[in-house]
């Protein structure tokens, strides 16, 4: 079995529902990963302060001894593999912009709900503008 360099034979495209499920899986795993990683870093505290007190080794130890961090990285890895799975069945021009832009909006919602962040009008506007911008750029 040879990888890459040769384009695969195009098969029938999945139904819109299947395509939406694949993109939803990427977006969900990615959002869970980002939220868990952010929660881990918030629980650890300012890394610059930790580095000032205990040096670079102390900062690395603080990160790698946090279970939430590994849960986050696990979800991000899952998001990466579900992206590869989606790319195996769908067109890049659909998957890349859809997953990249939707993740920004779901992260804003998840940040507000789970991390209790203050997502004010300014941040909503930024999330929506960047979301449309990434879609236009990646399409």
């Amino acid at each position: 079995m040879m990888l890459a360099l040769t384009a695969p034979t195009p098969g029938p495209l999945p139904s819109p529902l299947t395509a939406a499920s694949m993109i939803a899986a990427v977006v969900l795993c990615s959002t869970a990963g980002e939220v868990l990683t952010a929660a881990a870093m918030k629980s650890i505290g300012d890394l610059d302060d930790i580095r000032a007190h205990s040096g670079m080794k102390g900062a690395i130890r603080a990160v790698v001894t946090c279970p939430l961090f590994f849960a986050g990285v696990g979800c991000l890895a899952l998001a990466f593999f579900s992206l590869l799975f989606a790319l195996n069945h769908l067109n890049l021009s659909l998957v890349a912009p859809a997953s990249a832009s939707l993740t920004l909006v779901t992260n804003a919602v998840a940040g507000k709900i789970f991390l209790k962040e203050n997502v004010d009008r300014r941040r909503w506007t930024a999330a929506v503008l960047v979301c449309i911008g990434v879609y236009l750029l990646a399409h």
Partner: protein
Amino acid sequence: MKPLPAISLAHPAELVVSLVTAVFTPWIAAGIALLIGFFASYLTALSWADLTFVLPATAFGNVIVALLSRFWLHEPISLARWAGILLITVGVGFVAHGPSRTEIPAELETAREVIAK
């Protein structure tokens, strides 16, 4: 990856050798080092700023990639992509003007200190 020979899954031993060779290819090694640098900086940013501040701000990387591909690789950029660059820039400007972190109320902070003791 393009100058490297095609990677085959048929022989596991060859696969390992191919992957190790790929990792030590200068361009790929530099790419991995830069990705590690990105992740370390991203984690540091998340330790002092909100996720809803960091994510839109890091999306500015898309604009840099588009501008580099235009002026370095001389790739054409369509009108829709220029519009995308403009929207991301405006969005990042919006979020960067606000506070980077949600302030925790004083009593919660005190409770945390008590728990920590």
